[in-house]
């Protein structure tokens, strides 16, 4: 059965790492829904968070093959309720639309934040799960969204051993 899985990959900071990680998915013809990367709590160790829909069997095999990549320190699979996750979305709209009171209401109701206001445009930020950021997009669309950008998922796990303890073990 296909489900949404989040894969966390901890790697050394070497050139081409993103490529080495994604190749493992490409080979199995798996489509990545989102991918984010940044330095983790351990200096020099990068954390990739990859979201995809597939079967447990496939994702377990992918993780096995990810761990074979020399510069990959460790990879984990998480199901949706093993993790706390978040995404951030930015919406650029015309400042003049604010004169329509409904937009203010939408922003308030969705607990979105105004990041900047320019005479021409303003940028609104909303963090949340993809359904939430998408809903806000749908609500703003009638007023005209000039640009919309959403990050990939970032996630931390509920039960996992801390990576630093793991690194000390090896």
């Amino acid at each position, binding site marked *: 059965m296909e489900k949404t899985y989040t894969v966390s990959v901890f*790697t*050394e900071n*070497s*050139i*081409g790492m993103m*490529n*080495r990680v994604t*190749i493992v998915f490409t*080979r199995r013809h798996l489509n990545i829904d989102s991918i984010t990367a940044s330095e983790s709590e351990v200096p020099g160790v990068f954390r990739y968070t990859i979201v995809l829909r597939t079967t447990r069997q496939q994702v*377990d*095999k992918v993780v*096995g*093959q990810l*761990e*074979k990549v*020399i*510069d*990959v*320190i460790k990879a984990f699979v998480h199901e949706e309720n093993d993790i706390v996750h978040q995404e951030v979305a930015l919406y650029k709209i015309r400042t003049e639309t604010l004169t329509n009171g409904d937009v203010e209401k939408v922003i308030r109701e969705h607990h979105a934040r105004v990041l900047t206001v320019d005479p021409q445009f303003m940028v609104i930020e909303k963090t949340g799960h993809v359904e939430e950021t998408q809903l806000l997009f749908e609500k703003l669309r009638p007023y005209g969204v000039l640009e919309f950008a959403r990050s990939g998922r970032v996630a931390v796990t509920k039960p996992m051993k801390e990576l630093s303890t793991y*690194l000390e073990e*090896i």
Partner: protein
Amino acid sequence: MTTTKTTGAQAVMKSLVAEQVDTIFGYPGGAIMPIYDALYDYEDAVKHILVRHEQGATHAAQGYARTSGKTGVVFATSGPGATNLITGLADAMIDSTPLVCITGQVDSKLLGTDAFQETDVVGISMPITKWNTQVTKAEDIPAAIAKAFYIAKSGRPGPVLIDITKDAQFGEMEFQYEKCTTIRSYRPKPKLNSALVEEAATLINGAKKPYLLIGQGIMLSNAEQELLNFVEKSGIPVASTLLGLGAFPNHHLLYAGYLGMHGDYAANVKTNECDVLIAIGMRFDDRVTGDVSRYAKQAKVIHVDIDASELNKIINADVGVHSDAKEALTLLTELVQEKKHTAWLQEFRDLKKVEVETLQKSTDESFSDEIKMEEVIKMLSEITKGEAVVVTDVGQHQMLTARYYEYNKTKSNITSGGLGTMGFALPAAIGAKFGAPEKTVVAIIGDGGFQMTLQELGTILQSEVDIKIIILNNRFLGMVRQWQQMFFEKRYSFTNMVSPNFIALAQAYSISAKKVEAREELKENLLKMLHHNGPYLLEVMVAKEENVFPMICTGASVSEVRLN
């Protein structure tokens, strides 16, 4: 530790010497000229074999690695030199062969500009190397090489590529070499979980029909003796994958045969009759399993592999042991009871009889005058007592050699298994000879595959490589023709093969050669070839439309192996 000022190119050579490299297969060009210049001063310490195509260098290095147990080393220039390595890298990757390939690259300031002979070889080779890297500074060279040798040879071996820019080769540095012994993100040697081995032993001790499948992992971990001890104590019949041939002496009473699509009848059928299946250092390739949904379903499966990602990848293991074969076998041998499975072994022998009789009958009927490939192989096997290093190409001759050559020595079977690379054998045989100079090396090649890399005859000439080449000429791309006959209504689409005069061709390279067309001439000419001092090419005209059986057709189960 003493340090001295050297160029990056000299550092490459010093690092290789520090890794005890004595043989390099390569081909020069613009971007690797500084390294070749440095190599010029190492003529005494390091043998460099000038191949005729960089693909040949990779296969030669593979042959060298597989007979010597050491890491094969390749030099190539940037651009076309580097891209010519791709087939060999992919082959070495899938067949777990340790290689260190060093490519020259354009000056680091030119990277990404489509400079002359620039190609992103690191990007191209990423999925077909165990690790690769680009070095742009002279001072980074020794550490990169140290890491490369460590990665290539440890754990499950594989090919590694280091791309060195020309400015890094020219740059100056203080040379200092430290072998790499650990990498934080890489754990090649798993810790054996003895509880799992105990579990495995319990299964084995309770088994009525235990069956052992071995792969190349046995040889890669130098566990041949441990395997023998285990098998002789437990009395379990052993079958081998294509790459595992030679790890267990084929003349042994407990040897049950060769597995897979064109493997032995009993070896395949019994997979679906055993009660405990033990797989060590093999990876359940689809050519071995046939239809996985009907593979060994009745058996409890014990799988031992050094590569954790192989466990449960194709076949779910009841006991999956992530371990080096040698370590696991040593402990397992202590824990298993001494047994003789006489009745079970007899079942293998009975099937063997059926196989021999059926095959004999059908081949006798269809090709009585023409020489059959297996006659040549059997005769070669007898004359060499199964002790030669046998290098095969890809196709019918390869499968028949695997079936009929009696491999009695370890590291004596060199073939392209996972990738099935035609053109592998000639260059691989050259490398195999450098890896085992004291052994007789015989390459067995089809008329098609020979023409894929025949330029390496030039390497044999120039480097005076004493190998024996047998071309089994059936005037067809035989293996593909067989499939056309069986599955495409005999529509022989582009599989007939017109060949040059191989004898004249060999002679053009000063290689003695002889063509055999009649059965009566076969033995004397095989003997003549083997006794000849220096390289020799023997072309044997064999039956045009012989088919390889047994065969497990695509989608069939191992128990449905066909004898005709």
